[in-house]
């Protein structure tokens, strides 16, 4: 990373509490522009909670979160909307609107937030659908007619509809067969280069971790165990790291 890197997401001393149960105790990390950044950790370590805090679905008990240069706990409704249009979110099971066709799912934000002519909106939506590797006729299917992998691709196309700078992925390869999972990883990497994206993903998939991620954090025992690249992990001698990776490898 050179000196000109810009931080896109910054977490500072985040504390998260569910009732008496403390999930994060002083979590800090920084995501730079152009990275594919992973949030890792065992089940229940609070990875998804961190992601939900970034996209403003949940609030931490204390700490400061900065996304795209804005402190998100003190924004006006119009600032929130402006921020939301700059990111795209892919949920674990796609979270497609079941009453809309694939084409409508992808174009729904374009119709709502832009004044583009409908021909251009349809062109954009069809291109995004092709871009994520779906066949052209899929545009007119409904979510109930799609397989799990296709739903994820449609969810990705929908997340990319407004040309976001920042893409959030919640377990993008879970539930996919190994070949499709690698294809999905390749797609993410290609899109990152083509569209200048910064990608944040929660993942369990060890192959994704090695193949797709530039940097990541591993959460352990309410704190950040390590932040860095795969090489940093190999050089580190931490006991918990071994269990984390061995558990996945075995």
């Amino acid at each position, binding site marked *: 990373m050179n000196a000109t890197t810009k931080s896109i997401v910054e977490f500072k001393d985040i504390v998260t509490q569910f009732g008496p149960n403390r999930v994060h105790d002083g979590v800090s990390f920084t995501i730079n522009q152009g990275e594919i950044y992973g949030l890792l950790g065992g089940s229940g370590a609070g990875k998804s909670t961190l992601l939900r805090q970034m996209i403003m679905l949940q609030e931490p008990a204390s700490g400061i979160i900065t996304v795209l240069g804005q402190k998100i706990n003190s924004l006006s409704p119009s600032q929130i909307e402006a921020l939301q249009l700059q990111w795209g979110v892919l949920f674990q099971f796609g979270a497609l609107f079941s009453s809309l066709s694939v084409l409508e799912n992808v174009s729904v934000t374009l119709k709502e937030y*832009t004044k583009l002519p409908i021909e251009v909106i349809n*062109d954009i939506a*069809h291109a995004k659908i092709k871009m994520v590797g779906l066949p052209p006729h899929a*545009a007119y299917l409904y979510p109930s007619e799609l397989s799990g992998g296709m739903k994820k691709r449609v969810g990705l196309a929908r997340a990319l509809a407004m*040309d976001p700078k920042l893409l959030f992925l919640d377990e993008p390869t879970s539930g996919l067969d190994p070949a499709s999972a690698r294809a999905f990883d390749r797609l993410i990497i290609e899109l990152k280069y083509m569209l200048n994206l910064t990608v944040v993903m929660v993942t369990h998939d060890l192959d994704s971790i090695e193949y797709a991620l530039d940097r990541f954090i591993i959460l352990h025992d309410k704190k950040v165990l390590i932040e860095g690249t795969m090489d940093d992990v190999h050089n580190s001698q931490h006991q918990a790291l071994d269990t984390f990776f061995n558990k996945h490898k075995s």
Partner: protein
Amino acid sequence: MSPAKITIKKNDNSLHITSSGDWFHQSIGTIYNQLKQFDINPQTLSVTWDFSSMEKLDTSGIMVIIEFMRRFDASRVTFTYVGMKPDHQRMFLFYRKNFINAIPNTTNKNSIFQIIGKAFINISQGFIEFNHFIGINAYQFWLSILRPSLFRFKAIIKHLSSSGLQALPIVGLTSFLVGLVIAYQSAEQLKQFGASIFIVEMVSISVFRELAPMISAIVVAGRSASAYTAEIGIMKITEEIDAMQTMGFEPHRFLVIPRIIALMLAMPLIIFFADMMGIFGGMLIAKGQLGLTFSEFIARLHTEVPIKHILIGLIKAPFFGLIIALIGCFRGFQVTGSTDSIGKYTTISVVNASFWVIAINALISVILTELGI
């Protein structure tokens, strides 16, 4: 943010297009309309598009450029572009690779005959499926009769409570208000004829025979048919029903039979409660408007209103319970795939159940009248 701009210079047989500003979706609509209005002259041989003063570009901008490039291609014009920033060019080429001529949507075009035909097939299919459903349940019921330990007594009690006991407040209140209104409306008329005492027959016969059973059945249809459809539908979507089947728990025996039995047992009790509440409403008005005391009212009820009117109301109850539970469960099993089919089938289930309750009531009324009861 500077808006997108475009200038078009025409020479003898070439065009020179220059774009500038931010080619973002906010202002690209006007560019699109501008370009759409201009026709490519047949004499035009070449087009040069200069992007060097374009600041920013998003997908909508790219789409407009691609759209017009394709038009130039179609009219055999040589097209060249210059000055595109490397970032833009990378995105542009990527989208050009992914641009497709959208295939038309062929899925939703039905002629009137197809619509009618499909509706007819759906209805007949639904009828066959419903008979099949009744058949399965009758068979399971028969098996349970042969081995009574197969009955799920706990589930029956649970549904008795949730569909019967918990329905009492709303059924009671509705019936009370209806009894009140019937008495109130007739009190004035009867007074004019000096036939005030007939308020007792007026209220009790109409409430016992028709009103209490109908009101109870319709309220229960709204409460329980929808609940059954939603419960079973969700179990179907989450594959709980498949899981039950693999463990040897026959879903109809576990889910449908207990609901049917519970509702058939609960309906007469609910209706009896509704009878009492309706009569109580009538008594209040009789006392307030006509000065008839409670004991006079009840004494006349004993002497003048035969018990058969209550029995006629109660005899319909199990039929109502059966049809409501059958329809609610049947629609629940029809739920497939997506979550919005739950909403769809819940609506259908309530509408069907309410309709069939009214239809059965009419049928029984005709039969009883023909029999002279």
